[in-house]
């Protein structure tokens, strides 16, 4: 495995001085008018506002570590997850990741509602980098884990949120990830399924996978993660053992 100057192989995720600005433009969507203004004045037109900024994010997550991302709505947890995943490009700084990645960020994000569960598996698995043969081989596992029975042949528009969650999670687990990024997905499943997911997550943790977990369910965060990060207004304000960070979070409210 090639080594870079800053990253040791035992790191799974490294963020180095990462910042990210999010802009929106006050004029309805982008337009040619705005483009002209920008070209003529040679700088961003006044119609563009920065509405959120994440800055000074240095983060090192070792292989096998499980980290809970905590914080209020709009504190930047999901954006941080997307930066780690490589979906958002940071404005500055460096992001490195080792190993195979699986994500469940928005439930059933890649699903098509007109197609059946079984027809949706291939696409969602392949977008996480699985090859045809791997997908074929893991379909029995996915079906067994999702426990959808005959509903797997029904178009997804007839699925409940919980059923979608089962399928999405089952596919993500089939990737056999080295790094698993989860965003508030366990909450929608029923008790039995939640338990099963937690069991499976424990399993891949034992195999040395790295977990980054966003949740408002502090109990499950405490159960799954020994380290927690508290975010506020796009910054990391606490980073340490879950118990301590949870306390800081409770006090800070």
């Amino acid at each position, binding site marked *: *495995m*090639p080594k*870079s100057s800053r*990253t040791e192989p035992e790191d799974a995720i*490294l963020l180095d001085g990462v910042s990210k600005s*999010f802009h929106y433009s006050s004029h*309805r*969507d*982008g*337009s*040619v008018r705005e*483009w002209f203004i920008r070209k003529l004045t040679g700088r961003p037109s006044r119609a563009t506002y920065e509405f959120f900024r994440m800055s000074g994010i240095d983060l090192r997550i070792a292989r096998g570590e499980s980290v809970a991302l905590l914080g209020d709505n709009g504190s930047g947890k999901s954006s941080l997850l*997307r*930066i*780690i*995943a*490589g*979906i*958002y*490009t*940071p404005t500055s*700084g*460096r*992001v*490195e*990741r*080792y*190993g*195979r*990645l699986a*994500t469940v*960020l*928005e439930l*059933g*994000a*890649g*699903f*098509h509602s*007109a*197609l059946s569960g079984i*027809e949706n598996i*291939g*696409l969602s698995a*392949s*977008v*996480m*980098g*699985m*090859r*045809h043969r791997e*997908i074929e081989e893991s379909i029995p596992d996915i079906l067994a884990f999702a426990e959808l029975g005959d509903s797997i042949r029904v178009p997804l528009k007839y699925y409940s949120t919980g059923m979608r969650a089962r399928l999405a999670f089952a596919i993500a687990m089939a990737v056999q990830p*080295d790094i698993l990024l989860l965003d508030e997905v366990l909450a929608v499943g029923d008790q039995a399924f939640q338990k099963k997911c937690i069991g499976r997550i424990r399993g891949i943790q034992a195999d040395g996978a790295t977990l980054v977990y966003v949740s408002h369910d502090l109990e499950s965060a405490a159960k799954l993660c020994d380290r927690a990060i508290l975010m506020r207004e796009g910054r990391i304000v606490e980073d340490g053992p879950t118990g301590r960070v949870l306390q800081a979070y409770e006090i800070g409210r």
Partner: protein
Amino acid sequence: MSGPTTVNGSRETFRSGTARIWRYRAFLVHLVVRNIRVKYRASILGFGWTLLNPIIMLSILLAVFTHIIKIPIEHYWAFLVSGFFAWNYINQTLNHAAQVLEEHDGLVRNYPFPTEITVYSGAISKLVEFSIEIVLVTTVLLLFHHKSIPLPFVLLPVLIALQLMLVIGLSLVVAVVSVYYEDVKHMLPLLLMALFYVSPVFYTVDLVPESVRTVFLLNPVAQLLVCYQSVLYHGTMPSIESLAALTLSSVVFFIVGAAVYRKHGGLVAEIV
């Protein structure tokens, strides 16, 4: 397991970008299959719609240009079908490119993958439809127009490949610009209408005044149609000039399109 995935940092080179897309080829295949499945799942006529739409358009053009405005081309129907379907492919694919990223926003916002794959999948899905059309057109022309099998027909796969490259190059630019500027969606149908009239779909290049013909042939779509018409209508090899111009422009458009997308596509996930 591989080395680090550096998510940002140094700009992707053409080779590393291509390798990244190649790694996601299974995803591309699934996306194409899904596009086709979804499109025809709910309709009774299924694939029939793919044909019905261009055939109606074709009938209108045929009626207008043989009965109202008489264009002096022998076997006009055979001439018209030779270029029309390629035009139809370009038109539909580019219009689709303006919304393809929005169509796949769930994937784009939630999974790290080279988002240009959605553009590729759009162009390839439509190419499946086009291939069926071109097989039908070829059969009809061989049976009723040539009544033999001219050798230049072997060139068709090459023309289709060049057409795909050209259209993907253009689509990449249309797709990424559409994300930043809504205006493209309003402007594009007008541009495509203009392109229809300045490309020899329903008339031959011979009818273009010689004084502007050089400029006229700078349009790569014109070169593409000229090549199709040589093969399908005349049953002859396209001129080396046309073929060379088409090859060159397809490659250039593809590379430029890929470079434009690579430069500006990074923010697509948060804007779309």
